[in-house]
């Protein structure tokens, strides 16, 4: 009996804790996205439609997305801020020290779009983005590697064979867009294009104006590019919204999968209930025979054993529920950033599956008991 209680309780607790973890992870990612600003819109070259997945790896890009194209997108009514980005790598050196490092070419507006904090000096100057000025900002780690504790602002560095004046140092920060922002050099976008000898913009980051309609904005961005590319609408627009939806889907699927795995343990518990009940019926054959002699109908015997199975699984479900809730609370205590709360459907579902598996697997032994021949049953226990 304790075995049945333990098996059912473990199953229910597993459903609750695992779905709480899945749900917590989803909420964690959503929170991270929200902290980035949920109004981010990204344009990238290439026509391949995606719904928030990774940018297309293959596919034709018949025309480059140029700096002028990027700046033209600013005319869309729904765009609040816009910053074209070019990314490449190149050697950055000072004196005898040199290292290859990611180089990000962008404009002054990126600071506001990405909420970049400058530790020393200032960010890229506002002004015509087409002007290739030889100034650079250094990521926190890169500055430490090249300058150590010395002041970097106002000093000169080399990127490839060109000299750049350091105008600022970024504050330490996390990864984003697969880049470690502590390791990079930021230069004006036109300068980066010259360095990498390219016309193409890697990404255009935009923020959506408050109150504007996202589908309308996307439509307008496509229209502007189509107009400039002789009718070819060859950019892909990603929004925070669609990225979030994708993550949401992924994490919901993950949570469901975890719930299903845990659910299997409830089925196992059900089989255990069946085995224990079968043993119980064979041990209580005499009792069944007696009850029949005393006037019990088949239906009464069936209900008696079904009730026992139901009570056992109910007991297990209640213990499991308490364990699951405690387990989730423990996860939240240990990892406060993960809001590990089991969704209501998982709690309800876990308990329901436990009860129905108890009933389902209790049916066979109960039926066997109800069908026992009273004479044989009474003889069996003599």
């Amino acid at each position: 009996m304790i075995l049945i209680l333990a098996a059912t309780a473990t199953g229910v607790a597993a459903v609750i804790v695992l779905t709480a973890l899945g749900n917590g992870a989803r909420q964690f990612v959503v929170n991270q996205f929200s902290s980035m600003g949920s109004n981010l819109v990204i344009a990238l070259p290439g026509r391949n439609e995606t719904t928030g997945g990774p940018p297309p790896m293959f596919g034709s890009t018949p025309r480059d997305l140029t700096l002028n194209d990027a700046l033209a997108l600013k005319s869309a009514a729904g765009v609040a801020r816009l910053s074209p980005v070019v990314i490449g790598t190149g050697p950055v050196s000072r004196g005898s020290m040199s290292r290859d490092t990611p180089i990000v070419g962008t404009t002054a507006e990126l600071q506001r779009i990405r909420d970049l904090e400058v530790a020393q000096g200032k960010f890229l100057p506002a002004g015509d983005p087409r002007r290739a000025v030889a100034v650079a900002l250094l990521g926190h780690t890169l500055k430490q590697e090249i300058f150590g504790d010395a002041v970097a602002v106002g000093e000169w560095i080399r990127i490839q064979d060109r000299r750049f004046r350091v105008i600022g140092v970024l504050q330490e920060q996390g990864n984003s867009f697969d880049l470690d922002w502590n390791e990079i050099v930021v230069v004006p976008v036109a300068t980066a294009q010259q360095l990498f000898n390219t016309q193409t913009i890697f990404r255009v980051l935009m923020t959506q104006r408050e109150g504007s309609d996202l589908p309308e904005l996307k439509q307008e961005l496509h229209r502007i590019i189509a107009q400039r590319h002789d009718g070819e609408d060859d950019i892909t627009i990603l929004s925070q919204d669609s990225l979030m939806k994708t993550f949401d889907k992924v994490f919901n699927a993950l949570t469901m999968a975890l719930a299903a795995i845990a659910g299997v343990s409830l089925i196992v518990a059900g089989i255990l209930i069946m085995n224990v009940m079968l043993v119980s019926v064979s041990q209580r054959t005499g009792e069944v025979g007696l009850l029949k002699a005393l006037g019990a109908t088949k239906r009464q015997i069936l209900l008696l054993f079904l009730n026992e199975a139901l009570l056992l699984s109910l007991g297990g479900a209640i213990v499991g529920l308490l364990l699951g809730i405690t387990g989730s609370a423990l996860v939240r205590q240990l990892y406060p950033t993960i809001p590990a709360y089991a969704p209501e459907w998982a709690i309800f579902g876990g308990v329901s599956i436990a009860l129905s598996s108890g009933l389902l697997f209790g049916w066979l032994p109960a039926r066997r008991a109800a069908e026992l021949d009273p004479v044989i049953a009474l003889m069996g226990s003599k």
Partner: protein
Amino acid sequence: MIELTDISRHFTMGDQTVRALDQINLTINPGEYISLMGPSGSGKSTLLNLIGLLDTASSGRYLFDRQDTTDMTDHKLAELRGRHIGFVFQSFHLIPRLSAADNVMMPMTLAGIDIAQRRERVTKLLQRFGIADRADHRPSELSGGQRQRVAIARAMVMQPSLILADEPTGNLDQRSGKEVVEQLEALNRDGITLIVVTHDDDLGQRAQRQIKLVDGQIVSDSGASEPMGIDHLLA
């Protein structure tokens, strides 16, 4: 009240057919005290089970209280058993988890009788059989004689018209056995039909009517009702 006509009970074991009862004709009137005797395997327990509606005949007709039980549903048979027949077994058959009072109460619980009436009747019966002070004890805490008295109280609780006792003293010492028999006979004096299966000649001889079985057939019946038999043959 009980009328068995050409009752046979066959069991098939592999390719062999065992005739446990063969063409039994028997009429039992209300209030009779009957002992069923015979060697092991003579069919006396099978006959008791058939009379008690726990088993059904392979052929023949059984009228219980003028109702033909031949084609009765399991449900109806269970109802008749519960309301009209009390069983007393050699090995008591008490439910070990339940107290003496709850064991006695069980037939009423199955019949759906309300709790107040159940308690009242159980208390009276336990007093009558001298085990009121053992009401809350489990069977394992009772002596053999006390257990059988609980079983008799249970058999009586639905106020049946027939009590079937299968070797009721078989597991008891002489003194307890005598007490149990006296209690069963007292019930018979109150008008309840009593049928006792026994190996014990002394016990068998106490009955007003002794029926002896051998190889599934009645070989002697001290109180066979001839007129009924003749009626049956003429019918």
